[in-house]
């Protein structure tokens, strides 16, 4: 029996032990060459005084870049600002996403069309969102200031992207506009997968809309909430495009996130090695964070 089967397998047959490694080989080789090796190279550069202008004569300087880094107030503030940005964005998207998905689930007619329109921001390149919102919040002729002009009947020139807390808030608005649909779509799919019997049982027990939402909808969505929050946190930890377009991290580092600062150091200030060191420290934090999220994810799955 076994022999017949093996002869049937023909040229496709590879021993069961070696097949998975063979299947994984292209992915492993690619990742090693395009991500693994460059990241090691970046680590090496972070111990030198390499700049793009003097690429030939890089000298080994030990931990000097890392010492500079941890004394750099701008870096430490950018790191904290990135964490704050992540916390505000992910939590607002979560709350908005949950409420909107719940509202949308009650609209029965035209739900497909609704969902398609809702997905529009997901198709925008972050760069595009950046340009759009930079212009919507333009101080002279932006959409928002134009509306304020109509309301107050006199020129309102609020420099949204320049004033201190406003710039940060404006970028957050763009980020939330861009990414809430992702949460909505996932939560909507989750709500639709809740069995109607549970809802009916809650109704028979006389639960109000709000009680049903809190005691039935939200608990059933837990795995969906976890996945959506994890994916979004990882994405926001990488935030660069949007801020880079809207303010470039300025003015005077007011909206500086980690990655805009890395770019500024490496390419604008010609401190490539310091930029590499900073990028390395941040990647390590991000990797630890990812590792933690995935461990938690596996735990919740096993618990469920």
């Amino acid at each position: 029996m076994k022999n017949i089967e093996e002869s049937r397998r023909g040229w496709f047959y590879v021993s069961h032990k070696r097949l998975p490694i063979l299947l994984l080989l292209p992915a492993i080789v690619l990742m090693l060459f395009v991500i693994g090796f460059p990241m090691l190279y970046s680590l090496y550069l972070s111990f030198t005084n390499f700049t793009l202008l003097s690429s030939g004569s890089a000298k080994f300087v030990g931990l000097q870049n890392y010492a500079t880094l941890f004394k750099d107030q701008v870096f430490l503030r950018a790191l904290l600002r990135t964490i704050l940005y992540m916390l505000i964005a992910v939590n607002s998207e979560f709350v908005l996403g949950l409420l909107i998905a719940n509202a949308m689930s009650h609209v029965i007619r035209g739900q497909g069309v609704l969902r398609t329109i809702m997905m529009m921001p997901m198709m925008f390149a972050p760069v595009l969102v950046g340009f759009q919102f930079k212009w919507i919040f333009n101080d002279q002729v932006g959409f928002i200031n134009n509306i304020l002009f109509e309301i107050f009947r006199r020129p309102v020139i609020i420099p949204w992207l320049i004033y201190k807390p406003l710039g940060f808030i404006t970028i957050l608005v763009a980020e939330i506009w861009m990414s809430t649909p992702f949460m909505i779509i996932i939560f909507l799919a989750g709500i639709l997968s809740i069995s109607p019997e549970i809802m009916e049982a809650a109704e028979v027990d006389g639960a109000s809309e709000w009680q049903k939402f809190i005691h039935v909808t939200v608990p059933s969505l837990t795995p969906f909430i976890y996945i959506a929050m994890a994916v979004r946190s990882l994405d926001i930890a990488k935030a660069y495009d949007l801020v880079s377009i809207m303010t470039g991290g300025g003015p005077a580092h007011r909206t500086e996130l980690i990655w805009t600062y890395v770019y500024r150091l490496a390419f604008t200030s010609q401190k490539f090695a310091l930029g590499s060191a900073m990028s390395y420290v941040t990647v390590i934090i991000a990797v630890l964070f990812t590792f933690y999220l995935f461990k938690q994810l596996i735990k919740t799955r096993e618990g469920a």
Partner: protein
Amino acid sequence: MKMHRSSRTRHLPSKIITFVVLALFFVPVLWLVLTSMRPNIEINTRPPVWISKSVNLDSYLALLGFGVNPERFAFGENVPFGDYFRNSIITAASSTFLALFIGTLAAFAFSSFKFKGKNSIFLTLMIARAIPGIALSLPLLVLFTRIGLSDKIYGLVIAYTAMNVPFTAWLMSGFIGEIPDELTEAALIDGCSRWTAFLRVVIPLVGPGLAASGIFAFLTSWNEFAIASVITRTTASKTFPVGLFDFTAEFVSDWRGMCAMSVLMLIPAVIFVIAVQRQLVRGLTLGAIKG
């Protein structure tokens, strides 16, 4: 009768919220399309002009190379739209194809086999996703310049393929994991070879998964900015996201032209997403439902 009436009015607040939110999400999109069709003079004046006096498609025609835009602040005819389109479509399509191929092979290994180090390899792949494009762009710029890949389309293709493989592998292993083993076993018993079982049973079932992961990979590459902004220099490799900067100059911006190119850039994304919407949602939520 009573049921009917109550179901119509009961969710009224939900319906109102839905439509208000919908409007909030849709206004910027509408505004983008509208701006691409009105003269820059109108866009840049105060008091604001809300109802446009001349709406036309000149900016699109200028971008696509028909006729010249006589308007002030219009850079349309000078923007090499054709080059950007060629570079964007080649990089996005080839990196999507490669990522699907490599990622699906890896997904098969993860979902259909037990082997040593499986979990750690999987975790390493996922961790690679935590490395942002801008972190990768620093060493890639130096390395690509040394081996002659900077400002080349191939450089972008290689980088984007690597960026897309982990997510493709993750999504596809979810889709493949959903196929019951009994199906492939039944095919084997019916006399199929392993290869034909794979072609006839597995591939049709993972089709939707391929569509969903393909769209994700395509959109990631199509919209990627951080790496492209660092390793592309000329029209030989610049893609749309980088090309958008052609519409901004020191003191003036051609908002209209930029909006026109943005709309053209959005079209493929909109078509693809609408076409595979269902699979997309299923792919995204698969991880939540299945353990």
